[in-house]
């Protein structure tokens, strides 16, 4: 077996280079130079407690917060150890019934506001950290009344955490839910203090 030695030596050596040396080098350099990103962009509150990753969606149900999209990650949604979409096809009755029911609820809780597709259709990862500006705008009046803040303030906070497409045409305009909610809390505190 003249093949055996080259095959085994190269397989093990190249596996070690690409499977250990390379990822560990990248890990070391990242932890040194880019610790915030390397560890998942975790945001902290004023007292330093971790409140979530800027990149990973979370469940928000209280009226004073922006609500995220629906999630199929884990049995109750937003389980960040079990990413998943619904994988329901476009003709699936389960999807059509669910979207209709959600639209009915939104028509009641956000009367008069337009319903954006991302408000009733669920994300691919189940962990989408963003919503569309239309979805956020529809929620603004509910948030303003729950917090006793002027609608203009809520809209300003949302606008401050809205990001446009890269280079003007790559990707979509989006509102980061966690960042906006942290800023809404800050705005409420500022009003109380003021």
């Amino acid at each position, binding site marked *: 077996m003249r093949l055996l*030695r*080259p*095959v*085994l*030596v*190269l*397989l*093990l050596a*190249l*596996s070690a280079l*690409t*499977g250990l040396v*390379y*990822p*560990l080098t*990248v*890990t070391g350099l*990242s*932890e040194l130079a*880019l610790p915030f*990103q*390397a*560890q998942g962009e975790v945001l902290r509150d004023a007292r330093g407690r971790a409140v*979530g*990753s*800027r*990149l*990973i969606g*979370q*469940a928000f149900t209280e009226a004073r917060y922006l609500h995220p999209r629906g999630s199929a*990650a884990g049995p109750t949604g937003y389980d960040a150890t*079990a*990413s*998943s*979409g619904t*994988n329901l*096809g*476009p003709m*699936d009755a389960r*999807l*059509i019934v669910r*979207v*209709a*029911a959600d*639209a009915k609820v*939104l028509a009641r809780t956000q009367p008069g506001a*337009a*319903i954006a*597709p991302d408000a*009733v*259709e669920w*994300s*691919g990862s189940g*962990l989408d950290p*963003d919503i569309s500006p239309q979805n956020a705008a529809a929620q603004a009046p509910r948030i303003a009344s729950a917090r006793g803040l002027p609608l203009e303030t809520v809209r300003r906070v949302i606008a401050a955490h809205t990001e446009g*497409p890269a280079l003007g045409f*790559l*990707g*979509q305009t989006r509102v980061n839910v966690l960042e906006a909610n*942290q800023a809404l809390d800050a705005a409420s505190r500022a009003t109380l203090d003021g």
Partner: protein
Amino acid sequence: MTWRGWAEIAFTLGLSAALAWPLGLYLARLWRGQSTWLDPLLKPVERALYSLAAVRPEEGQGWSAYAMAILTFNAAGFFLLYGILRLQAHLPLNPLHLGGLHPALAFNTAVSFVTNTNWQAYAGETTLSNASQMFGLTSQNFLSAATGIAVAAALARAFAAHRGETLGNAFVDITRATLYLLLPICLVFALILVALGTPQTLAARVDVTTLEGAKQTLAIGPVASQEIIKQLGTNGGGFFNANSAHPFENPNAWTNLIEEVAMNALSLGCVIAFGIVGLARREARILVGVMLALVGVAAACLYAAESSPTPALASAAAHAAHVLSGPNMEGKEVRFGAASSAVWTAMTTGASDGGVNAMIESFTPLGGGVALFMIKLGEILPGGVGSGFFGMVVMAVLAVFIAGLMVGRTPEYLGKKIEAREVKFAVLATLLLPVALLGFAAAAAALPVALRSVSTAGPHGLTEILYAYASAVGNNGSAFGGLNADTPWWDGTLAIAMMLGRFGYIAPVMAMAGALAAKPRLEPSAGALPADGPQFASLLVGVILILGGLQYFPALALGPGVEHFQMQQELGR
């Protein structure tokens, strides 16, 4: 649909083509054994590897020796990966103390990564330790890509040879592709991905308390280092279950652009390198043009399909006063929307990558149908790294043969006479795929043991079955994710389909390369069909569409076709 969406599609494809050029020039230097600017750093490593492995780099191999080296290397890689996955519980870097994979899943996953398919029957974040992700999967991401590049190099040399006997040395080709090409690019771009937000840590979990006081646990790990080779090597197996739709794998439009370009640029670069090494630059440009044109058409169809109305939004409009008409957002991320998801899906299904940034199962019937059709065209647009190029050459050989039959001349391609032997091998390679795909799909559609895993009945369920086997045979790896694929039937049959699709293709291609190399290289005669003009390009497109299309048309009509008309009926109500 907006001008922004169209601009994004055009820009992404254009950038891939632009970067393919320098990549191809560099790759050609590697294939010819010429010096590179990384030599001072890597030449000592390369020499040490050869002396340790008893490889004599200047010693060429004939086609059968070359093929044996490739197959043995991959078989050994399979056993190593299978062992790692089974013994995961006893290996280090396993902070969650995950157990070993059960035999069927370990078999399926090992085959999946060695064949460059990267079908995910497992959910990365809950099944695999950091050691398995790095030493097991990341390394095979490199080595399966290097295997594809090596076979492409051998085929390119076959065309350049004049009564040649050898095709180069497989061990040298695999080593050089890994050391000089894949590793340096990945090192740089992994760090760029980290800077843009992709995590890279040896931790496995981060606990947080939300603003509402609830607990959330984030799965995390060495994501960036695997993400870039997953795309660059057209592998596609994600760190997480949701693959590149997961915000840690693909946090924003910039990472999305890098990951898209990475999965096409190197495959196109292999064709450019072939043009240089095989002394056929203009012919190579035609192949690149055909690849890009067909991916562009697919992306446009996907964008249109995913921007069209769906029954779900129609039912919402029936219950609420004002529903914005918009793209089909089920299974899509807000940061990507319809356009990014469409161009990614066209590129990933054309390239045998199989990574996804949106859930294809939730696409409209035509959108999912285009994705399925792209895989069925044979993973040559531009196909996997290396493998897309040699698949395309098989198509080109068939195209000149058919043209030769029509005008009654002996067909030639790139100065080589195409005769019975080459055509037999080309036909063997292209026939194996539909036989395996349709055979397994037909069996699965009839057997209760298989049907229990299918998520829904009717045409959508049929598409789910077809997609799974197409993805396996085409070594793509993307899925209609509703299928519960971790059962003995699916783990087993899909693994067999993946092996047939990879090695059942490589073996006849190597034999064809051997036959071509042995022929004299002729000066183009007046009677030969020029392979560098629009006439040949349209002939080639015709052969690709007829071979890919007609074989599968009945199945496509019963799956996505029927579902599309059902949906139109529903919307018309």
